[in-house]
């Protein structure tokens, strides 16, 4: 994903980066100076971005003692969507996509994040669950993802199965795959519409 997408969407380079950092740790508060170093923005630019976020109800500001602390407003009605979008632009999804794009199209035909990160319910210590359709083994996949893990500082639980195996197991009503494929997915490679379909019917 080109790095210019975020500024084009948000009209600022600092604002989406700020939101991404806050979304990555929804349970904690940050001081402005912490955010300044995390985002790598100037004081003025960060201040403007914080003001925008607070005014829009995306960032919560609290006064503790003599200073303000900031936290993502996880109660915002667009929090989940925003977190997933920011993950695609800056966060785990971006790092994982870059890592997986080094594999060939046969090894990794399609890949997506599932579980808590795909539901936008993860935090910085949550594992990232990655499902790959392709002719790659778990061991090779782990090697492919090792740099992304270091970059993110999070454990990635990745699994890979060839497409025929996935299709067969879905057709057989495999409970785990049904849950994965019918649940929220954050696509990394390939299109959602090209994934094997979950058969409709009772368990």
């Amino acid at each position, binding site marked *: 994903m080109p790095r210019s997408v975020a500024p084009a969407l948000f009209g600022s380079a600092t604002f989406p980066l700020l939101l991404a950092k806050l979304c990555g740790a929804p349970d904690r508060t940050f001081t402005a100076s912490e955010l300044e170093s995390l985002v790598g923005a100037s004081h003025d630019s960060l201040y403007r971005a914080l003001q925008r976020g607070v005014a829009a109800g995306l960032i919560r500001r609290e006064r503790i003692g003599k200073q303000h602390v900031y936290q993502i407003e996880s109660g915002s009605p667009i929090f989940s969507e925003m977190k997933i979008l920011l993950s695609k632009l800056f966060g785990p999804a971006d790092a994982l996509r870059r890592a997986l794009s080094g594999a060939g199209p046969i090894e990794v035909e399609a890949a997506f994040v599932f579980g808590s990160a795909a539901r936008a319910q993860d935090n910085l210590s949550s594992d990232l669950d990655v499902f790959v359709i392709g*002719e790659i*083994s778990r*061991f090779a996949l*782990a090697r492919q993802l*090792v740099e992304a893990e270091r970059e993110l500082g999070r*454990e990635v639980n990745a699994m890979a*199965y060839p497409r025929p195996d996935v299709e067969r*197991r879905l057709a057989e009503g495999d409970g785990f795959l049904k849950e994965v494929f019918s649940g929220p997915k954050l696509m990394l490679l390939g299109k959602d519409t090209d994934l094997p379909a979950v058969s409709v019917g009772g368990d």
Partner: protein
Amino acid sequence: MDGDALEFARQLREVARADAGLKQVGARADVAVQKLQLARRWTYRAATIATIADFVDDPDFAFASMYQAFQDAADALLCAHGWRPGGDRAHQRTFQLAAAGLFPVDPDAATLLRDNERTLRQARREIAYDRTDVVSRRDLLDIFRLAAIVLPALARRTCAVIDLNPIPAELEEWAVPTLVG
């Protein structure tokens, strides 16, 4: 004990000071050899299961058996030094410490063990506790390739640490069967 083994023994004592789960059990050459024999047995069980027609659709069974071979072989090296990891992260610590002990004499095998131990544990955990059809045939081929390098290296190192000379033929000629895809 050679110089590398003495240095590793010193490192283990240091690790144990910060890790209450690592218990000193006393070096037992006979137990270390038994663990290696057990590991070798699990290797052949895994190979047998992987090639039996009834289990060809169940690579999890062979994978879990081979995992046990890794665990026993890594355990053997630590047992030769007189230590045993316990507690929540016992398997992880066993693999990581065994890789550290192997590194000075066989860095390639040690690196393979260190870099793949999490994938091994993760798959085995899913097999043991979560669901069926965890690993693919491709994963099984990979664990056999890994075993062919790492397990004999652990066996050789364990025998060297306990000064087992000559090395019993069955441990010296430890050939992990090759699976075909």
